[in-house]
């Protein structure tokens, strides 16, 4: 009797747990995991993927979401952050970077909103150079100081107050990859029908 009661207890807690998993993970996954990738969605290049890993390493997703909400739910549409995101937009994302925080703005279509490489580099070097009120951390280790820019490299146009003496600042390979990733974020192509 004692054994059966314990057994029923453990069975019960196992069942409630697995039911929740099936309801909000298993069944949704079965509906959206085999969607056709939209025609306009490009696969990441090797450099963009490397940049994505830098994005993860520096924890960008703790302050920037990558999902646009529909009109009537928040001001994402009014801010021109892009059409509402659909599951298929993230076909190639692993790990997902949807995010839960907007200490900074959403980045799901940042390539469209801010396509300037120069702006992106300055902002990454120190965001307060381009937005004085920003509280984004600086990322100086994604840049290096050199006497002169090498062939194909472009030095940052830093204001005199922060520019090093007798040297220029150029992005490292990591810095270039991260910006390449950010400038690949464009989900403004037409959305195929989604199973919503």
């Amino acid at each position, binding site marked *: 009797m004692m054994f059966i009661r314990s057994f029923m207890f453990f069975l019960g807690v196992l069942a409630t747990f697995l039911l929740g998993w099936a309801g*909000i993970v298993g069944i949704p996954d079965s509906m*959206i995991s085999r969607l056709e990738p939209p025609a306009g969605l490009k696969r990441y290049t090797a450099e963009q993927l490397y940049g994505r890993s830098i994005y993860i390493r*520096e924890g960008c997703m*703790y302050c920037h979401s990558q*999902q646009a909400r529909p009109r009537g739910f928040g001001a994402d549409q009014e801010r021109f952050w892009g059409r509402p995101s659909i599951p298929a937009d993230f076909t190639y994302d692993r790990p997902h970077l949807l995010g839960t925080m907007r*200490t900074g703005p959403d980045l799901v279509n940042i390539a469209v909103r801010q396509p300037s490489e120069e702006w992106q580099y300055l902002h990454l070097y120190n965001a307060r150079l381009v937005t004085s009120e920003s509280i984004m*951390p600086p990322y100086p280790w994604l840049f290096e100081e050199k006497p002169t820019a090498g062939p194909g490299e472009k030095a940052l146009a830093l204001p005199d107050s922060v520019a090093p003496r007798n040297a220029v600042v150029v992005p490292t390979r990591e810095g270039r990859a991260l910006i390449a990733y950010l400038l690949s974020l464009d989900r403004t192509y037409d959305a195929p029908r989604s199973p919503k």
Partner: protein
Amino acid sequence: MTEQANSSMPVENQSPGPSDHQSDEDLRIHIDDSATSPTLLFLATSMVWLIIGSLFGVVVALKFSLPDWLGSVPALTFGRLRPAHLNTVVFGFVSLAGAGMVIWLTGRLCRTHIRWTGLLYISVIIWNLGLLLGTALVLAGYSEGMEWLEFPLIAVVPVALGFVLFAASILKTFANRSVEHIYISLWYILASLVWFPILYVIGNGRFYQGVSQAAMNWWFAHNLLTVWVTPLGLAGAYYFIPKVIGRPIYSYYLGLLGFWSFALFYNWNGLHHLVGGPVPTWAVSISIVASLLMFIPVITVAVNHHMTAFGNLKLVRYSPTLRFVVFGAMSYTVVSLQGSLEATRTMQEIVHFTHYTVGHAHLGVYSFASMILFGAMYYILPRIAKWEWPYPALIKVHFWLTAVGVLLYFVAMEVGGWLQGMAMVNGAVPFIDSVIVTRPWLWGRSIGGVMMTIGNILFAYHFALVVYRAGPIRFAPGWVRKAEGQTS
């Protein structure tokens, strides 16, 4: 498991007759002795993570106000310290302190000595090694990139194994119990031993991709509270409130209703973190409904605890355990009701993506779970270290610093987060306004965080004094205030 519905109290709480008092006392000492070393190891190492995690938290908070501070050190950048803070406080402090409490409670509630203690020693070692490795790797830049799941596999495996060994010892002890009656605290403990390993494996197993992975991510993160943090807090509250007051729990039936409605509804809550996101809307709606249904277990538990303490609440002036546990139990009611309302679409439109959510999370993990764990340690430690807390004044300082600190943090984050959200949903104002408006409140958050951290450090110091049997010798309980007639 509800056979003796009328004797609804921890068994050892029933006042023994004068004749069997001696043997009862002996048995309790024998049980406590078997739990002493493993409990002490879990609790003591949890103190180390409490300090490390708190310091991470303070630096993270200050970086919102001083973004260039420590800005050239990659390992100390915001995006690496934040996951380090979360993982050290949740999988370090709360988990290890909770496991320590569970070991001790299981001996008491099963009325038998702890079995397979060898496994517990291995468990505490590899669990801590996993934490150390995981924290170092996240700071070095090897995060896996999903919130609450940042630890790389090499750190996840030892933590998971540590948990399984711990669970094996607890289940073996449970199987050898010498009581018929299984008290409410044990239901929560036993359920968490089943839930946590499955959750942890699915979460870290990398079975999903794209948006499915996001659904899994928030099922995992929210369920970590369901299957582990909340059961620890509730097991503690259900045990220590009646224990210190010396009255049985108000209603066993309410306990039963509370437990099973908790198990049924809480598992479905996670997707309220993706409201408005690219997830099937029906699944998000289910999570919102389930979040609202949490009113049932929460109010049930609140009524049960309140009615137990009713008329005896003045004891919180004397007993450190009761003071911390009651504060934690009240926070549980507040944070849960807040969470249910916060999950609705109306609220999510504004507070999703803001500091509001972070404030809510701290009310749960600190004000509820951690405060109950502090209360539990105030009770357990003198009994296993055989040494009273030497400085009652220090307990008082610990309480006020942490209680005021967490409330200040909470209020600052909720107000700041709300203003941030209101600015964000207003398409007419520039985005940067949603940053500027939070500035004073982010300072408030840092001040609250510093207060909690100082309180935590004082507590760890006091903890060490008891372990090393330092400070004045006391022969009576270290009550925060002298009770009538108590002389020492």
